[in-house]
């Protein structure tokens, strides 16, 4: 590859200044003439029959323009994956926070006041909150037609696991639990909904999946997908949560009934109780290894709590079941997964998508194996880690793998050998690896690539259209860099449009760490097409053949003679005149060389590229309080190529911080089926003082399938963090954390138990 001008360089995000100045208009800032304000009345019970709803008093309140319930909806059962959703609770409310009714009024105060006037007669029902309890024979049923509360089952088996265990020198077996945590994005979920004269709905909403959402919502509303337009303005974060959620449809129903635009944004409280937090999981693991530390067999059982309806939990449980199998050279693996209904908020995607839960468990187990075998955890990973050009047990084709380089570089930077060797009381160091994907072939069965449009007008203004979603992670900047590089212009010349399903490509969206690779390749293809068209115009102007035309830093020239050049704008103007006013429009798409996994064996190749990482944490534990402080953190990440090193390192820092919060403090706490910490006073996320200096290391093996060699970073930034910290806690105390988050109280209990014992292994 020739020298790069824009890609591989650090730029602040192209919209950073606007955001820092408070000029960005987020969903919450949008307004339309005549707009009403919506609020949702939510179930105060985890499980209750709805015997009657009287909305008459609320409807009479001055300023109230619409009050709606299930009766105002088409009554269609729908869902992104399973048709177990209704817009509003039908005959019963299934979780604390379930939508029961909603109001649209002239202002927020009136809407809030009206909620108190809606009279709902409930009959409380027995509820079940824990997924294991929900599987028991006498458990209350969340959905009457789902026996055993089983929402989905998943199985995968490869090789001969039983024989592998027989051939093992050591076997480790235990049960782990990962809890329900909230994504804590800055802007709560919500939408602005408007319905035009023809009945066509426009939704302005912060969503990761504008196009897929539109299809789900079309079903829910009983209209065709082309009757819904989704526009994605700037929005305040998502971390996986912002996929389908009833709050958007409630806004639509309110707009339909009132005949006016309705903006409905969750209060933080509502967002806590009715967002889509992480799938909690019970995970049983059995892991074997030979004397030399070669992993033999792995068996897991995952029980994941879906909450009251399936958003994407069954895909997340499936991911937990088998994604890690392609991190190491496993040959014999068996997994079983159960996705189980419970009377809690529906759970869904959160950075890591099940792989983070299982990575925590597997990497904990690996350290236990390493200890049994008296092998350095670093060596155990190096011995088993999957390398470049290998095929994993499930058929995944690993092109580039910087896994081992990540381990070696992280260990070096963290001074692993020295620190592990000179152990001090209640201080410890631990590491963890992870793999991930850059797109997930089976997530949408129709296709999994990406597309782009590059429009260049008379003035040389370049607009990139994509169909993914920038939630603040910097996708616009990444796409702009890719387009700028390919077109040969400075970054400032690129404008990236908000996604509008009427205009943008039909992109699948931002999830599965796919944006940079899939969307980036789509934008790259479109830029290539646009360049080709401009090159033809420039060839005419420069009197050369189009193949010899180059553009760099905004000037067209003939290859080999850069002294004679034409400004980009002049060429763009000429191209527009040649087309009698039509802009140059480049389109393109990317077809990833993936293989849809076989439904039975799951053998396939789910992603064109697999990122890897190794993170190392150092901790200090207060032996009298059980409190853990993370004192140092190194994160080495194989990102293929960092399109924007600054942004990539930002992802690492953010992922580690989020993982640290999950490990040490974050937890959605329930009592009597009700969330008891639905605010940032008691749902604690890390403050700046809780986070040590995080030292990112970017490993760049250049991925052949990536745009300019890039793979994804979003999710792997967090996947290894939990076990890096808990492995460090183990190193410091000999206490194995098997449940997240680490409770200082429980850790203290364990420390005291150990102190009571006369001698210890360490």
């Amino acid at each position, binding site marked *: 590859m020739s020298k790069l001008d824009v890609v591989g360089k650090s730029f602040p995000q192209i919209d950073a200044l606007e955001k820092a100045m408070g000029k960005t208009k987020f969903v919450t800032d949008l307004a339309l003439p005549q707009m009403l304000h919506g609020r949702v009345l939510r179930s105060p019970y985890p499980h209750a029959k709805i015997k009657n709803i009287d909305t008459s008093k609320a409807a009479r309140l001055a300023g109230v323009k619409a009050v709606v319930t299930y009766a105002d909806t088409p009554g269609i059962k729908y869902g992104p994956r399973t048709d177990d959703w209704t817009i509003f609770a039908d005959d019963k409310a299934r979780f604390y926070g379930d939508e029961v009714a909603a109001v649209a009024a002239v202002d*927020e*105060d009136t809407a*809030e006041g009206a909620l108190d006037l809606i009279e709902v007669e409930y009959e409380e029902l027995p509820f079940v909150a824990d997924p294991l309890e929900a599987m028991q024979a006498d458990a209350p049923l969340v959905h009457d037609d789902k026996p055993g509360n089983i929402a989905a089952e998943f199985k995968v088996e490869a090789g001969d696991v039983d024989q592998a265990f027989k051939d093992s020198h050591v076997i480790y077996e235990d049960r782990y639990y990962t809890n329900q945590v909230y994504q804590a994005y800055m802007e709560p979920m919500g939408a602005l909904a408007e319905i035009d004269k023809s009945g066509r709905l426009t939704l302005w909403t912060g969503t990761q999946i504008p196009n897929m959402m539109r299809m789900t919502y079309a079903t829910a509303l009983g209209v065709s997908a082309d009757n819904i337009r989704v526009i994605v303005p700037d929005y305040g974060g998502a971390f996986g949560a912002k996929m389908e959620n009833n709050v958007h449809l409630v806004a639509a129903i309110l707009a339909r009934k009132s005949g006016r635009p309705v903006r409905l944004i969750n*209060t933080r*409280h509502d967002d806590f109780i009715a967002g889509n937090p992480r799938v909690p999981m019970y995970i049983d693991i059995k892991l074997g290894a030979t004397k030399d530390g070669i992993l033999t067999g792995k068996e897991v059982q995952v029980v994941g709590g879906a909450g009251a309806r399936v958003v994407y939990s069954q895909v997340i449980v499936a991911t937990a079941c088998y994604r890690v199998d392609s991190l190491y050279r496993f040959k014999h693996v068996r997994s079983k997964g159960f996705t189980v209904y419970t009377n809690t908020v529906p759970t869904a995607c959160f950075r890591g998508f099940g792989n983070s839960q299982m990575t925590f468990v597997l990497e904990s187990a690996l350290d236990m194996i390493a200890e049994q075998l008296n092998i350095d955890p670093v060596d155990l990973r190096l011995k088993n880690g999957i390398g470049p050009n290998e095929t994993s047990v499930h058929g995944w084709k690993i092109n580039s793998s910087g896994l081992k380089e990540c381990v070696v570089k992280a260990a070096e930077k963290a001074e692993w050998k020295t620190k592990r060797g000179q152990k001090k009381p209640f201080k410890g160091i631990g590491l963890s690896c992870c793999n991930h994907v850059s797109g997930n072939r089976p997530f949408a069965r129709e296709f999994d690539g990406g597309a782009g449009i590059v429009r260049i007008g008379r003035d040389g203004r370049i607009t990139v259209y994509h169909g993914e979603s920038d939630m603040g992670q910097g996708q616009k900047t990444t796409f702009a860099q890719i387009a700028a590089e390919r077109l040969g212009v400075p970054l400032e010349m690129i404008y990236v449009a908000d996604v509008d399903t009427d205009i943008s490509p039909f992109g699948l969206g931002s999830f599965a760490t796919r944006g940079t690779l899939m969307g980036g390749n789509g934008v790259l293809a479109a830029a290539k097409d646009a360049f080709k068209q401009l090159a033809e115009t420039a060839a005419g102007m420069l009197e050369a053949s189009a193949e010899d035309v180059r553009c760099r830093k905004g000037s067209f020239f003939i290859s080999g003679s850069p002294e004679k050049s034409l400004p980009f704008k002049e060429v763009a103007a000429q191209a527009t005149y040649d087309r009698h006013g039509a802009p140059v429009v480049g389109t393109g798409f990317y077809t990833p060389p993936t293989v849809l996994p076989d439904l039975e064996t799951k053998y396939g190749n789910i992603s064109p590229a697999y990122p890897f990482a190794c993170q190392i944490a150092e901790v200090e534990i207060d032996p*009298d*309080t059980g409190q853990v*402080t993370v004192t140092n953190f190194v994160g080495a990440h194989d990102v293929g190529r960092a399109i924007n090193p600054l942004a990539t390192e930002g992802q690492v820092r953010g992922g580690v911080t989020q993982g640290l919060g999950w490990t040490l*403090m974050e937890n959605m*706490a329930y*009592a009597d089926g009700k969330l*008891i*910490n639905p605010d940032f*006073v*008691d749902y*604690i*996320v*890390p*403050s*700046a*003082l*809780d986070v040590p200096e995080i030292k990112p290391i970017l490993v760049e093996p250049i991925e052949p399938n990536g745009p300019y060699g890039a793979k994804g970073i979003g999710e792997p930034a967090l996947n290894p963090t939990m076990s890096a910290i808990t492995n460090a806690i183990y190193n410091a105390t000999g206490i194995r954390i098997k449940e997240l988050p680490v409770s*200082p*109280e429980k850790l*203290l209990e364990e420390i005291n138990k150990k102190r009571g014992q006369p001698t210890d292994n360490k």
Partner: protein
Amino acid sequence: MRIQPFDYWAAPGLNEALNELDLHGADATVIAGGTDLVLNMKKKNILPRRVISLHNLNELDFVLTDESLDNDSVRIGALSKHADLAENPFLKQHFPILCEAVGLIGSWQIRNVGTIGGNICNASPAADSAPPLLVLDAQLVLASKKGEKKISLESFFTGPGATVLEPDQILKEIVIELPKQPSAGCYMKLRRRKAVDVSLAGVAFQAETGPDRKTLAKVGIALGGVAPTPVRVPEAEALLAGRTLDEAVTKISDCAEIAAKAASPIDDVRATASYRRTIINVFIQRCAQNVLNTLKNSGGD
């Protein structure tokens, strides 16, 4: 969570504020930094019809040694901000325990607007300034149109969020006597993260030697967040008071035990009662150790 409509008036001075309270006290609430009040209004715990702002009362934003009465006390205006108090050189010299405690409140943003008067009048059992002020035997000057009244902080709190303050009264200032002999203090709070967290349990330990500089003349121990109000623990104090520094060291763990027993913490989403009790014990030991060491180094020649 919207704030209900209310009338707002910013008092230009103390007298105007007191006049206004005299007329409308029952319907009105005063606001200082608003870092507690606004949240309570949002949650609809308080629905005042009238909010009287003390924001412009610069006359209540001060730290002074009291020249007029005697030179033995310091007066802290109720409108003093935590950020200023945490860095005040005079307080740092004489009452480092108070500076430490208010320096642990919330975040920079909160400390820049939150006032010590608001922290006390809000009467949270977990208010961080309360345990240090209790062990310093702080007095409160309450003012109304009718006049001023001085009461001890210990008699001020009556329950969670409840005080003896009358609707026409405001807290004007806090008065603390200066120690006559070497003194030292220490405050520790249990929290779930290293900043911006309410205290799940707070421990204040203050001691002053006698003229011999070897005997503990005064010992103050107070707890926050583990009872309906911040509380002193006289039985734990009594165990150490009157002892030499060396003797006291040997009694620290007994003292901590007594204090932990005296606490009546609750189980909630933040921590269990038993963990809070354990932490009280640990923190008293750490605070006491720290204070006795300081006194030994400063006085024991």
